[in-house]
């Protein structure tokens, strides 16, 4: 019965022109089911935030969206995830190209131990997006500019990326993701390892990126979800409990569990 009521709810809250959709998504780590019948639409050029207590499956769900779960042994996925209406788990889909179209930023900043320039240039290089050095330079500069990092690093593009501060590293990772011109950017708790000032910068950046990219962000901070996202989805114990406009979720949640979580009574 629960399945029926849930799918009824998601249909109710589905968006007009979804960039990505998940339909009846089940995910198993070997024997343990981590996601149960998740139905969720990701609206284009909006920020969708996924919230919920630890272990609720929100990061797992995020990694389903660019098939990063493929790299983990023993993961089985049922159901359907689409990008622009095409099933991304279709055999004909090239995972490499898919991940170029759906970029990802991780919880801990993970720049390559190379120069700042090479970090940003890596994506365009492996995908053969550029024909000349000048073109590559331009992409690197634009990406850094978009990530709000250019001013801070333009004099030391050749110095190692690992020498940057945590916040700068995370923005570099965003620049690196942006450099391959993705359509969707997935962010897995991008600010959890950053101090409040760096967090504010990254949040500002997310807001700016919204005009060009579809963004899905996993966060533990309710305030962050409220600040940066237009839509919010609440996960609990592997199930999508409620999804809707961020304002509605935070001011007028329909589900008791959502209410309990956002008011801090459990989790």
């Amino acid at each position, binding site marked *: 019965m629960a399945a029926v009521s849930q799918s009824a709810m998601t249909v109710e809250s589905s968006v007009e022109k979804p960039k990505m959709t998940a339909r009846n998504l089940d995910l198993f780590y070997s024997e343990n089911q981590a996601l149960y019948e998740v139905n969720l639409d990701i609206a284009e050029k909006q920020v969708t935030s996924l919230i919920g207590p630890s272990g609720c499956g929100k990061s797992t769900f995020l990694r389903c969206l*660019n098939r*990063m779960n493929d*790299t983990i*042994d023993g993961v089985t996925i049922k159901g359907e995830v689409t990008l622009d209406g095409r099933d991304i788990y279709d055999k004909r889909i090239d995972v*490499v*190209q*898919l*991940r*170029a179209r759906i*970029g*990802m930023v*991780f919880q*801990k900043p*993970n*720049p*390559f*131990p190379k120069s700042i320039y090479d970090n940003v240039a*890596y*994506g365009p290089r*492996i*995908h053969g997006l550029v024909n000349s050095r000048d073109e590559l330079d331009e992409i690197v500069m634009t990406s850094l500019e978009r990530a709000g990092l250019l001013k801070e690093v333009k004099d030391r593009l050749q110095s190692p990326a690992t020498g940057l501060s945590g916040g700068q590293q995370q923005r570099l*990772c965003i620049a*690196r*993701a942006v450099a*391959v011109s993705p359509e969707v950017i997935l962010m897995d708790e991008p600010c959890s390892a950053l101090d409040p000032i760096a967090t504010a910068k990254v949040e500002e950046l997310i807001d700016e990126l919204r005009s060009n990219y579809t963004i899905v962000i996993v966060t533990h901070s309710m305030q962050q979800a409220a600040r940066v996202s237009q839509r919010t989805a609440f996960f609990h114990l592997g199930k999508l409990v409620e999804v809707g406009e961020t304002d509605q979720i935070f001011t007028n949640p329909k589900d*008791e569990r959502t209410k*309990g979580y956002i008011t801090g*009574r*459990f989790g």
Partner: protein
Amino acid sequence: MTDMASLMEDRAAAKVISDNLRKPVDWDSPKIARNIKKRYAAERRFKIYGLVAICLALLALCTLALSIGSKGYSAFYQTYVQLEVTFDPAVIDPEGTGDPEVIGRANFDGLIKQALRDRFPDVTSRSEKRNLYGIVSGGASYDLRERVLENPSLIGQTRSIWLISGDDFDMLNKGYIDADVEEGSRRLNDQEVSWYNELVEAGAVEKQFHTRFFTNGDSREPELAGIWGAAVGSFYTLIVTLALSFPIGVLAAIYLEEFAPRNRFTQIVEVNINNLAAVPSIVFGLLGLEVYLNVMHLPRSAPVVGGLTLALMTLPTIIIASRAAIKAVPPSIRQAALGLGASPVQTVTHHVLPLAMPGILTGTIIGMAQALGETAPLLMIGMVAFIVDIPGGALDPATVLPVQIYLWADSPERAFVEKTSAAIMVLLAFLVLMNGLAVYLRKKFERKW
């Protein structure tokens, strides 16, 4: 709301525990003081154990270095005897052709013997003469020939020339043969010792740096035996070993770490690799003998077979070290690359491998050093042969440094004792060099990242 209910229960339980903890602790009680004292004593004891262990290890190392060094250093010097040699045209080039081939065939040995007879004219009997000729090494005639071929104008002249001495004479000069003991229990009789004393008084005995030791191959004559043949053999053997075991080992490690599914098959492979690392090396020798020599009919005693055999032995070491190095690369780097759309192979070659390289290289060089010092498997495939020529390639018969040491240690001549120690010093020098290289490479690559 079962979640809520269980939460309440947890809180209640936590409260009981924290009440028990609230009892005040008397930090000045004798019991606590005793405990602290005991803890400090234990720490001091532990420190002392560590120091003792290090001292013992250093002592062992020093003893080894001292005993080898003190025995071996004299092998780097060789006794030379000065004699008046007459380059008799009648012996060297009776027809005055000046043809190098004729000169090359001449009896230079006879010239040296003549010079010795001239120096000690009162020696007449056959056995005395044989002893007399022992003062100069059999290899001295080659030196003379070289000299004359280089400078034919010597023919007809009489020159005083330093000639390499025989091994017994050399031992006497280096003090390894004691002239004071009874005649019957030393290798040189009184007459030979008196010749020696006479030559020393005349200033005709001298120790010179022994370059031959570094340039010659093996020889039955200790004064002519050198390490170069074995060093070249070791070089070719290691090249073959490296060329095989490095790529195979690294690729196997990459596959097992990055691509292989975790199932029963890979588990069995892993267990077997770890077991192989512990297999006694002579077993690999037997395998090499059976497979490479008996089945594949590769040349006996050749570095190529030695290299193939040692590669088998080194593979597990390289695979284990490489896997550890690859495992140590943070997963976040792989995720970053995969998240950008790099293929698994690109992820490995662009990011994982460069980061793992210092560890892989260290493991490889340690494996190579192990192979350099290995003797047992090479005995099985015939690299223990007495080989005089310096090998010109991996297919020529050769021996290697540790086997050379084994061969010399087995030789009866007194002079081979110092050669053995000197060869050990050369081998150790190579090992130190290789380990130094490992440290250098690790540092260099680490700095880059």
